[in-house]
């Protein structure tokens, strides 16, 4: 397999696409409400910014040890210590620089800037993968198709770990594959550094080293008789191990350790707590074809079905095409050992995140964001198959005309994605594709309709215009509603009037947000009864399906 050259034009185009994506996401950020997790991570950003300030002050005083003492680390990193801090450190740094110091961005946007950065990095990765392994057309088209998936576009705005870990997961496989083909040491080092940051972002990636080792072993054993002599025997085995696998303990682990101050002290106990938290993670209720998934075991089909019905149809075709392509690489008699290895690598990289969540014993703690990490691989490879197919169909025509046909098909497909993206710009997590009948079809089948109390921005103007001064607002924060911190930040950003007071006590509320999740209907009945009315002041909906409502106590 020969990699295409990534030339100067590729740098220009990929960086331009990344910049364009960053601008679009930053511009549309005010459309997306603060999700529950952002309430925690934005708080973590504030604490981290305090740590940066403290460190700068200490160093200015000549005290170089204070920022690293256990007391300081406890003070600034105990909050939300169930997650490593690489991305949270970036949130804090961005907030510290762009909001506190330079006042260039609002509080929320200064933190979400990190999400924007990772979205842009993902564009670059998509381009890189497309260009190196397939074609420039694929490389250019892939970012457009990727970010016109409403779930992806939605999550790209959020100051959370999901797009960063999507980037790192896919980058790990792409860089590893790049190394296998090119055998360049610099690529192995890049892989190792990225993998260290990935570990310090989210635990999803801990499965990658065993998977890489296993796949390499399969490949090694399968092609043993064709190996060069220096790769045979006891010492040859160790010479044959790819360099990135050696660099994981040598580079990735130190990068991970350096990125997470919380584990600098009392390392073993704190790592144990971290593992225990995720090994015994609670399940968050999900509705799936009318079944309430709240207690394990969950159906094996859940993440496969959700992927199938939440991916727009053109991209879904690409996913299947990619699976066929990788399978072809593995099984084709014309494939060499390297291509077989790459086929297996990409297939596992793309599908393992879904497979893992499909295991009945694995907790389900959220929506598709937990298993969409391999989608960049699927999309790029699938798009390559589609582009190749289009060229085959237009085989008889001139090369230039063939390129035009290819471009027309891509533009038509992207045009078809405009309407759903506009419809779901504010409710991306609620998107279901045409195969299930859109959001109405999903609601008819009692699929999970939305998640965790972010969908209030359409309600806020009505609340602000209606509520008397000092009114009390039920924010439903104790359940799957609006995170209390998010409520405070929404006030801080001016989305909710400053004099409106939040409460979790229905009995003292004058107004109430209700965030629809099937299992929370009880709260809606309580609200109706308590307020003496079922008449909403405002409804947030798409295609007549409601997601959240604003209610006012009857006078």
């Amino acid at each position: 397999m020969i990699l295409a050259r990534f030339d100067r034009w590729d740098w220009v185009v990929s960086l331009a696409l990344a910049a364009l994506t960053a601008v679009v996401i930053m511009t549309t950020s005010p459309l997306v409400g603060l999700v529950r997790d952002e309430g925690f991570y934005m708080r973590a950003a504030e604490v981290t910014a305090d740590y940066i300030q403290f460190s700068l002050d200490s160093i200015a005083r000549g005290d170089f040890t204070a920022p690293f003492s256990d007391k300081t680390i406890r003070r600034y990193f105990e909050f939300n210590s169930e997650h490593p801090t690489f991305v949270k450190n970036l949130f804090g740094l961005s907030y510290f620089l762009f909001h506190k110091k330079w006042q260039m961005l609002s509080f929320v946007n200064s933190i979400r800037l990190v999400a924007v950065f990772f979205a842009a990095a993902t564009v670059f990765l998509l381009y890189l993968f497309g260009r190196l392994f397939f074609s420039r057309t694929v490389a250019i088209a892939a970012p457009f198709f990727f970010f016109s998936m409403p779930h992806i576009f939605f999550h790209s705005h959020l100051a959370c770990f999901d797009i960063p870990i999507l980037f790192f997961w896919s980058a790990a496989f792409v860089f590893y594959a790049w190394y296998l083909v090119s055998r360049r040491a610099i690529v192995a080092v890049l892989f190792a550094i990225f993998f260290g940051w990935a570990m310090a972002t989210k635990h999803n990636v801990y499965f990658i080293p065993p998977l890489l080792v296993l796949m390499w072993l399969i490949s090694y054993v399968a092609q043993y008789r064709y190996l060069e002599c220096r790769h045979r025997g006891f010492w040859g085995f160790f010479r044959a191990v790819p360099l990135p696998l050696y660099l994981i303990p040598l580079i990735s682990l130190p990068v991970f350790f350096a990125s997470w101050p919380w584990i600098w002290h009392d390392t073993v106990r704190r790592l144990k707590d971290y593992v225990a938290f995720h090994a015994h993670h609670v399940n968050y209720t999900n509705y799936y074809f009318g079944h309430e998934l709240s207690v394990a075991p969950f159906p094996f089909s859940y993440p496969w079905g959700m992927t199938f019905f939440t991916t727009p149809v053109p991209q879904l075709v690409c996913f299947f095409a990619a699976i066929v392509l990788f399978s072809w690489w593995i099984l084709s008699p014309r494939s060499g050992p390297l291509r077989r290895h790459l086929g297996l690598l990409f297939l596992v990289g793309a599908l393992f995140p879904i497979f893992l969540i499909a295991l009945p014993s694995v907790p389900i703690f959220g929506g598709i964001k937990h298993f969409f990490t391999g989608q960049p691989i699927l999309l790029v490879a699938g798009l390559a198959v589609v582009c190749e197919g289009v060229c085959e169909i237009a085989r008889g025509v001139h090369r230039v005309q063939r390129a035009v046909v290819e471009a027309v098909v891509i533009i038509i497909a992207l045009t078809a994605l405009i309407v759903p993206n506009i419809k779901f710009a504010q409710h991306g997590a609620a998107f279901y594709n045409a195969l299930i009948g859109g959001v109405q079809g999903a609601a008819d089948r009692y699929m999970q309709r939305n998640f965790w109390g972010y969908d209030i921005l359409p309600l806020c103007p009505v609340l602000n215009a209606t509520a008397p001064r000092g009114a009390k607002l039920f924010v439903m924060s104790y359940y799957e509603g609006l995170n209390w911190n998010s409520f405070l930040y929404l006030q801080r950003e001016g989305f909710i009037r400053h004099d409106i007071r939040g409460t979790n006590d229905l009995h003292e509320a004058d107004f109430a947000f209700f965030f629809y999740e099937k299992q929370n209907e009880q709260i809606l009945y309580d609200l109706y009864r308590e307020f003496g009315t079922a008449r909403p002041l405002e409804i947030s909906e798409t295609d007549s399906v409601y997601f959240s409502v604003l209610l006012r106590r009857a006078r």
Partner: protein
Amino acid sequence: MAVRASRVFALLFIAGALFSGVFWIFFSDRGGFRAEDEPRIAEILNREYRSGDIIFPSPDWDIGFTRYLRDGITDISYTLHAFTPEEIGDLNNNGVNVLWFVTDGTERWEGIRERFGLREIERYPAGRALVVKAQSSVAATIKLLDFVEAIGEAKEVYLTDQTGAHTPCVWEGERWRCGRQEWQYVGPQHTLMAGRWQKALWAHPYTNKTLHVVFENTVGARTLVLGTAFLERAYREQNGHPVEVTVAVDGQAVLRYTNESIKQRYRNRVSLPEGAHMIDLAFWVRFDGARHFVFNGYLAP
């Protein structure tokens, strides 16, 4: 990769894009209530709805008509799909006067009527939508005493501990107060029992204590129907404990079961012995963390 396969995927991709585009432009908002029908639906309900009625919208995801409802209309259930015909019958036997069905057309209404064996009382067209007043056709049960309605007339509500010490609950006008904390009471509420909207009595049990709700059978009942369930918050608790339910008549247990910490409404019907006098509904739990527990039921001939 085989040329033919890539061509197939190219064609599928083009077809998928066209299908997707047409769907999202023309068909994605095809269902639900038409905006112009929504005020008409509300006008009918505002005029005809009486306290004690219950409204079932179908489809249950389009609540646009509620924008026009008058104050005081609060009993709307979005869980029709989860009911069985018997449970719909129970609603009529549990203090609900009339069932209102708000549907997006005749076809959907006919499906509902057939599924639940409903008796149509009157229908009110509202543009393409249809509002129907109906009742269950399940034979009406003669209820001699409804636990929810008659909770104020309970003979006694009290707690006992392992030593047998007796702590009475105090009637406060609408509920029996059993302790200082907000949840420590027995009283009526409208709630979801296993996903079904119900009138029920909140009866949160207490760690290693038995909560007794005692009714005097002054009505000569020979049958007891009891429904129990955990609320959503409770059965989602990972390590929630089950509740032991015992029904005793004049000191003799006639029903005993374990209400597991799951999403299920336990419904039992038991015959009462001749001359049954004191009926003691008892609830015990090992640990009361998040044990949001409710019951309802009645005495019948």
